[in-house]
């Protein structure tokens, strides 16, 4: 590795995580097509820079609340790919004992308080995590991820207001990927940017290029620092794009191939690779090697997961109550 400064070393680390997320999701997509993953899933391919840029600004003991499109958040927060893969295959040793699957993937010990099947469902919870941090005086921060669709839910309004009036250490990260299922953000909001709404709550709001991990990271780091220092919440909008459909049933009638290709041309992983190459930190062959390493980690994870036991139906009722 030729990374020449701590900053570049950090960027290489972010590249590794983005490659890991991409390899994980491409494998998950493939496993779904083979009928080996049950139910549905929501892929975040294309959005890796947001999860990685934000989570790189967090301490291990910080919290995140994730969304239905949460694979990237989970890995970026430090989850183990093999325990995630075991969960995707519905295995007893997966993160959620095979009870949650892709849509409820959580790593509570690692500070990921869960993907969420309900749009905006994590936002109210984030206020409580923030309040708990404030009352316990631990200096932690909570990041609440949500999408452009969630910004039109009532819970968004209630939660941002509550976080603002109590100066809670919460960073609200909107992944504006242009579509709430099929509804384009531009038709669902009269304002141009989700971050314009921050003014209504008396908190800073900003919009960054969500396809640029460095831009995301710098904005997130400053919002996290502000929250940790007692400065209160921020609304950070990251403009991004999902390459795949909303879920597995999506025929993508609401967008054209040209649009998808135009966004793919701005791919966050390719851009970071180019940036590192320009800086002389990582050449093409080294970057390819990192991608191969990520793919190997995911293959190992899959081998692990396949060998794991299924849950026993006799244990069906366990963990409904503590």
């Amino acid at each position, binding site marked *: 590795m030729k990374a020449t400064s701590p900053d570049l070393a950090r960027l290489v680390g972010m590249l590794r995580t983005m490659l890991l997320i991409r390899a994980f999701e491409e494998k998950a997509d493939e496993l779904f097509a083979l009928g080996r993953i049950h139910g549905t899933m929501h892929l975040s391919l294309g959005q890796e820079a947001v999860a990685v840029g934000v989570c790189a600004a967090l301490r291990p003991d910080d919290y995140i609340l994730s969304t239905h499109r949460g694979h990237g958040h989970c890995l970026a927060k430090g989850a183990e790919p093999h325990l995630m893969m075991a969960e995707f295959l519905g295995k007893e040793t997966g993160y*959620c*004992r095979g009870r949650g699957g892709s849509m409820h993937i*959580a790593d509570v010990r690692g500070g990921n308080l869960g993907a969420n099947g309900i749009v905006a469902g994590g936002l109210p919870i984030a206020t409580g995590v923030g309040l708990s941090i404030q*009352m*316990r005086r631990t200096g932690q921060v909570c990041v609440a991820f949500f999408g452009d669709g969630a910004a039109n839910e009532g*819970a968004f309004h209630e939660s941002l207001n509550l976080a603002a009036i109590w100066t809670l250490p919460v960073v609200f990260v909107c992944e504006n990927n242009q579509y709430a299922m099929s509804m384009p953000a531009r038709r669902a909001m009269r304002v141009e940017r989700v971050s314009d709404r921050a003014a209504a709550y008396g908190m800073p709001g900003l919009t960054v290029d969500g396809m640029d991990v460095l831009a995301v990271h710098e904005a997130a780091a400053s919002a996290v620092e502000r929250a940790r220092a007692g400065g209160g919440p921020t609304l950070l909008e990251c403009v991004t794009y999902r390459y795949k459909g909303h879920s597995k049933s999506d025929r993508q009638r609401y967008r054209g191939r040209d649009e998808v290709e135009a966004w793919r041309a701005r791919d966050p992983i390719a851009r970071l690779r180019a940036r590192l190459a320009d800086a002389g930190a990582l050449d093409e062959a080294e970057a390819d090697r990192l991608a191969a390493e990520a793919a190997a980690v995911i293959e190992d994870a899959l081998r692990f997961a396949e060998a794991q036991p299924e849950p026993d139906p006799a244990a069906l009722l366990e963990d409904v109550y503590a």
Partner: protein
Amino acid sequence: MRVVTYAEAVREALRQALADDERVFLLGEDIGVYGGAFGVTDGLLAEFGPERVRDTPISEAAITGCAIGAAVTGMRPVLEIQFMDFMTLAMEQLVLQAAKMRYMFGGTARVPMVLRTPAGSGTGAAAQHSESLEAWFVHVPGLKVVAPSSPADARGLLLASIRDDNPVIFVEHKLLYRTRGEVPEVPAPIPLGTAEVKRAGDDVTVIATSVMVPRALAAAERLAAEGVAVEVVDPRTLRPLDTETLVASARKTGRVVVVYEAVKTLGIGAEIAARIAESEAFYHLHAPIVRLGGQEVPIPYNRRLEAAAVPQEDDIVAAVRQVMAA
């Protein structure tokens, strides 16, 4: 023993929990200076300060989620939802988040929170401030539902609810707030899921919940004068339900009236009647089980109509006579 009101008993339990455990805090609309819409939290702000007795904006979804998030990260919040009717505004957070979080996450999370709420009719507040929705929550695995009928039960059950590691819906009846009863100075928690025989009798079992318990006890007193020995059983916790105690009483008397304020169809009494019918007590029944529930109507404003919408003492007396005659 000293006598306190039901509202005081709730307040005492809150005070005891706040004093005993620094993780406990209260949040809700107008619970601070105002003292709560029904005065239940009166004085606690002065005693424990604004961080632990926390006034919130009118944002039921957010404050419910706030309690969940605090609970899952190590606090033990006690949330007041000002009227049970307003729980409709918090349903998603309660039903899809609080109740399921532990299970969805494979047992790695716990959500030790209590949601207290005043329920029921009889105050002239009409259709949007008089609901009895407890059965909605009983229907959700992951939640516990408690409905005390006396000051002593309110005190002991609230303590147990706050110490429980699960989300507990604690249903207080508005008409009970001013009722009085004996409460020990420092009472023990009452385990959730335990029914209590409030009055013993051999002829007929009246299973009553919440405000219907004092009405059933008054009815039992009148019926005693007619030579009918009524056993009054209060489940106290609706989920988990102490089926064993209910079935044992039904088996002993062979006659059962179930009385509850909520709309009769699919109310808690429907479940209680079904459990008795499914049990071995069925073979000991001398008459069909009678369910006495609320009428199939929104709660009306007019005093006479309002009283007619839910079971009253006279209705319980009549229902008991009916099962005794069968």
